């Protein structure tokens, strides 16, 4: 596995500028490696966190770790992206625990494998977790922030959502739908001053990709996490991580379909 040479040390050396604890952030899907690194980057700034995922034991461990390392307040609660009927109650519980919620990071996702292309019952899980579940919880978040005229929503999508490829188009379609959803949400919330940021990571060194063949320029989760937090200080709406994926995807998106359909990607 080749690593993107700057992806490890580079960002880690950067010191976050100290500022008063300003953000209170809900992290959905908090047990993934990217989410854990993002939570750490927020905690390093002194932000308050609410971690949510299906795995309560992991949440307890990650929360304890962030409290000890960064001395910040960390809440956690069980959240299942696919159980959309529980989302309203869940979000109320988050607000009850953290009344000054200022932002949300949507970090859950499910890659699945090739089987999804031929077995819809399996593929449905990919669509449900990556898109349906995301659309459901984001609607509650958006309805909360809109009247408050503040807040941010960061959605972690994927470069795989930029163009359908035979190797993982079910996942790609679900992430592509999420990217479109975030785009529409950004348009809707712009007048209310709520920021919506779409993050499109390339290959990241996580459990999702570990041991997969053919990976190149793999970034560390820490690099991705710090870039995500830093994106709040910048103005971009859609960020590719690491940055060069914007240009790789630019090329891939512009290959004419008659040629693209013959390619093996």
């Amino acid at each position: 596995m080749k690593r993107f040479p700057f992806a490890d040390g580079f960002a880690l050396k950067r010191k976050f500028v100290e500022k008063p604890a300003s953000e209170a952030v809900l992290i959905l899907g908090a047990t993934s490696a990217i989410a854990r690194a993002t939570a750490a980057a927020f905690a390093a700034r002194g932000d308050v966190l609410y971690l949510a995922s299906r795995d309560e034991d992991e949440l307890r461990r990650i929360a304890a770790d962030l409290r000890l390392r960064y001395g910040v307040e960390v809440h956690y609660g069980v959240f299942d992206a696919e159980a959309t009927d529980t989302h309203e109650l869940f979000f109320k519980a988050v607000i009850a625990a953290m009344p000054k919620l200022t932002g949300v990071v949507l970090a859950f996702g499910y890659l699945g494998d090739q089987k999804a292309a031929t077995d819809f019952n399996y593929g449905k899980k990919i669509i449900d977790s990556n898109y349906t579940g995301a659309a459901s919880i984001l609607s509650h978040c958006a309805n909360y922030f809109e009247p408050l005229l503040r807040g941010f929503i960061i959605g972690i999508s994927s470069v795989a959502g930029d163009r359908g490829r035979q190797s993982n188009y079910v996942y790609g379609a679900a992430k592509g739908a999420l990217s479109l959803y975030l785009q529409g949400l950004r348009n809707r919330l712009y007048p209310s001053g709520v920021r919506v940021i779409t993050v499109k990571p390339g290959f990241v060194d996580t459990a999702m990709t570990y041991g997969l063949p053919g990976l190149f320029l793999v970034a560390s989760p820490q690099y991705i996490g710090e870039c995500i937090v830093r994106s709040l200080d910048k103005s971009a709406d859609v960020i590719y991580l690491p940055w060069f994926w914007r240009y790789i995807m630019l090329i891939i998106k512009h290959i004419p379909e008659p040629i693209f359909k013959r390619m093996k990607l």
Partner: protein
Amino acid sequence: MATLITSISGWGRYPVQSCELERPERYADLRPGADSVIVRGQGRSYGDAALNQNGRVLLTERINRLLEFDMVNGILRAEAGTTLAEILDVIVPMGWFLPVTPGTKFVSLGGCVAADVHGKNHHHDGSFGEHVLGLELILADDSRVRCSPSEKPDLFWATVGGMGLTGIIGEVTVRLVRLQSALMKVHQHAAVNFDQLFRILQDPDLDDRYAVAWIDSLATGKDLGRGIAMCGHHAASEEVPDNSHLDLKPARGHSVPFDLPAWILNSRSISAFNSRYYKKEGGKRYPFLSNYDTYFYPLDAIAHWNRLYGKRGFVQYQCVIPEATSFAGIHRLLEELSGSRQPSFLAVLKRLGPQGRGLLSFPMSGYTLALDIPIRNKGIFVLLNKLDEIVLQHGGRVYLAKDARLSAESFRAMYPRFKEWLAIKNAVDPQNRFSSSLSRRLEIGMI
């Protein structure tokens, strides 16, 4: 779980073997599985302790959460993949320090238990295992058990120093020590030959909580064994100026970006370096204050320093010779070494206190010598076998965490409590599921 089949090595970069790596991110995924497996933390053991040729290797680098810290009593519970560096970042500003630390902080907590590591304070404080209050172990049958010196003590003392062969160390609870400042008060004493160096280390008036001696391993003849003893303790608050007690400025790090050609480190260049180092450090006659990082972890300032030895790697040979015969034994080792055509580029001498309770633990009352010898040709293994003989003659032993080539017979002669250990291992892991390249080489677990 996804596996990555790739060639890996220990820190000495010898041997290199193909292993199936798994890297769990959830604590619940730390499971033994159905066939041979060994856990690997940071891969800082030098030889084949964390290798499993053509078998599974479980990486704990992402199982690294700090779980609980009792700030009043200094008791820390953390997952086994947590590194000492991560722990120090949190505890030093709160006025606590590790009770025992090896010469690098980039090791995992689980590795410290499995190798029962020692530091420069072994003659006062014992090895790492003495300060461990409890462990959570994941056994071969996938059960999770707690063990400690009072709860399942047999299993506990078989795991401390057990090289990961009794089960997966999941969580470690360790008792820390109080600090008044993050600085070290260091006093260095130069010695013109081995005789003098040895006497300095023995002298109770010159001794301190931490003591270690660097030896100019290329000096021969009348200079044989010349070196510098470095004694120190955590500076008390009245020993440091104003209120900068816990103030820490991380030293700027360097890195070796790629394998250097093997010829760069040769007897001449190292000899020149050693002479300069001896003059510079030996000239420091008065006690001085030092950052704890520079005192304990001088080599950590250079990332990937193992690349200095080139692609073929190096062997670290560390042995202990019991008190009664240590002077003669170590003198003979140094003579044998300087008479060979295999230069050692780094030699470190330390005093060890009484043997601990870990059944396969390395330390025993006496003196320990550690040598870094680059692998240039097969001659090195002939030399090391000769050193084994000398160590055995003097009743000493070789440190498994550094070892890549000890024979099964020598191992059994050096570790008399092995049979007792094996009985416990066989009881908890009858199918010998936890096995490594080291355990196969030493014929551990085979009947």
